[in-house]
């Protein structure tokens, strides 16, 4: 096989692998990405039920209700609230008044969450929550309102 033929084989192999990869990426990006919104954006956008989203904000004080199987709480950015129901175990750091990110499917009643993430420690707040709070104008540096730390 000549050098030129060898090079062509290599290029063909590379095209096949890269083409497959590009196809997979495009397919996965279309079906497997999730948009993130704050509660105010959810209300403003009026998204149809069935949309897969992530929402972030603070767990509203006094809103947490739990029974054996499900937890219900509201996520707020100070302007609007979104009701969330969640069937799994809540993370250890889940507290009222603290930052949380919930992922799931929107329904008429709110968000049916499939995953709930709480912040890591008191110095760490999900970046998305900080941005959502800043957007709604409820962000305060070092504030203790709602347990928001920097």
């Amino acid at each position: 096989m000549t050098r030129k033929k060898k090079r062509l084989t290599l290029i063909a192999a590379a095209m096949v692998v890269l083409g497959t990869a590009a196809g997979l990426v495009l397919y996965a990006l279309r079906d497997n990405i999730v948009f993130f919104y704050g509660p105010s954006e959810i209300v403003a956008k009026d998204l149809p039920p069935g949309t897969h989203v992530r929402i972030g904000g603070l767990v509203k004080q006094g809103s947490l209700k739990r029974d054996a199987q499900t937890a219900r709480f509201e996520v707020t950015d100070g302007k609007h609230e979104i009701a969330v129901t969640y069937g799994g175990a809540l993370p250890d750091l889940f507290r009222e008044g603290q930052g949380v990110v919930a992922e799931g499917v929107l329904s008429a009643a709110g968000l049916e969450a499939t995953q709930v993430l709480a912040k890591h420690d008191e110095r760490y707040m999900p970046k998305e929550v900080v941005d959502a709070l800043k957007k709604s104008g409820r962000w305060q540096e070092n504030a203790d309102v709602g347990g928001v730390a920097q």
Partner: protein
Amino acid sequence: MIVETGHFALILALALACFNAVVPLWGVATRDSRLMGTAPSIALAGFGFVALSYAALTYAHITSDFSLLNVYENSASAKPLIYKITGVWGNHEGSMLLWVLILAVFAAAVALSARAMPQDLHAAVLAVQSWISAAFLLFILLTSDPFARIANPPIEGQDLNPLLQDPGLAIHPPLLYLGYVGLSITFAFAAGALICGRIDAVWARLVRPWTLIAWVFLTLGIAMGSYWAYYTLGWGGFWFWDPVENASLMPWLAATALLHSAAVMEKRDALKVWTIFLAILAFSLSLIGTFIVRSGVLTSVHSFANDPQRGEFILAILVFFIGGALLLFALRANTLKPGGFFAPISREGALVLNNLVLTTCCATVFVGTLYPLALESFTGEKISVGAPFFNATVVPLFLPLVLLMPIGQNLSWKRGDFFGAAQRLYFALLCGLAMLLVLASWHHNGPLTSILVSGLGVYVIVGAFAEIANRLFGRVALVKGGLAQVWQHAVGVPLSTYGTALAHAGIGVSLLGLAATGWGAEKILTMKPGDSANVGPYQLTLTRIGTAMGPNYTAKIGHVVIREGAREIGALDPAVRFYPTRQMSRAEAGIKTLNFGQIYVGVSDGVKPGTVDARIYWKPLVAFIWIGGLIMGFGGLVSLSDRRLRIGVAHRVRKLAAAPQAAE
């Protein structure tokens, strides 16, 4: 005083690094061997000062010197001694100091391995290494000073993040750093080779041990990190496709590709340009990983508290090194002579395919990790690209690679015979199929993918050893010479061949562990004392809920008894610990290992008083996932101990230099 000494030592180390970044290169340019000769001793001195500085910070942590901001924010006097030591790298400033310390350790190791290397390459490698050291020392001194004082020292510290108070943390970040930073050596070798115009089989032979060292640490670091996340985050998962995890996966993929392409370059003098490019890419990805972790541009469960100034600084470092290296590459790569000749179906051909797939996987992970960032900065839309994306892209790319792995191993160099190689794998294929059939008939309720992946795993494990088995038992050795002959053959097989087989088998072992997750079971429920739950073949009973006091926490403990049938086989004490200083709690999962499977119980405070919320998992063969990683790392070590790969094989390398094509 000790603290000031540490600070001063760090400044001196910076001065030395600046000196070493310039003078040896000047020596290379003017062919002045005295100027080139300064590099090793300066690198050793630099290591001494960084080590002193690190020791000073450790001393401050051990003695709870709260006049240091870093100690005050991350330590407390009641904290156990081991976490005072590991806590040094449990925060941003300290971990960057550890980063630089490891960089200095590697520089010192290169400095000491001079005998085997041409002097100009040696000097250039150390100079490039010094550029990196200087950049990171500057970063620490300007944005992340670990020695900053507090004017009015408080009497008690804020304690270390409880999540980090764990033995897993004692080893996993240093291992990862050894991997990340080890890649800086291969980067320095690539840049050095471009500067000196010296890129040949000798270079490949010199660089391969360093790549292997970095790869072994990176592999072990990733495996340990995965296990740490598994048992401390309390979710029972082992890989979350989190940006921080991807940050370590990307350099690993590139380093794995580099390891394989350097083998081609060493044996056949081919793929030179590509190998150099990979060496640059692997370390660039380490830097990008550092940027992702340190800058907080991406949301991650692992990120530290962040300061935008730091992110910008690291971005500048990143642009400087990646851009500089690529510029050097563009200017010099065309001077390389094309090397050895090979047919598409050959060991080289298989390794090229391996490289293609690994780098494509790497690119896919890169896109998935950074796409959200790009989209947000251009459109303001926030998205998350999670596990489904990576599962849908990386898995389909990876599985064919694994399937072809044993075949590639059995192809000969230069011109191979595909069907011949496939023939040698009859036995491996049979084993894989047997596994499929057994599982399909026995566990017909299990998910199909688990059964298929189990078969693949067995095929990969057996196939990894096919080449060695053929050498040992081929050509009726056993009939003619008996076991003595086999033993003789076994000793004759190079250690690096055993290493390769082990590393590949490790992938098979991990695959078995992954496949077995499909037969696992999980339950999430609220329990009060006396309640029982069945999971897999076991029955778990919560006997009582107790409390306990730790040195710096209080704990609520669920005592759980495990029964298999009527027999009691063990007990677990999963707990939820509360750390008052930080006002936070953390789960301490109860894990019982049974024949490589694990019963995993995590508890958190129940809604009603006197209850706990329990997460109970039965995970058959789950330990295989990490044992596979350990076997891979061990395979790397075995390869590394091969006489021919040892760092500093002076005379052999010189002989090779005379006849680069004569590699066996």
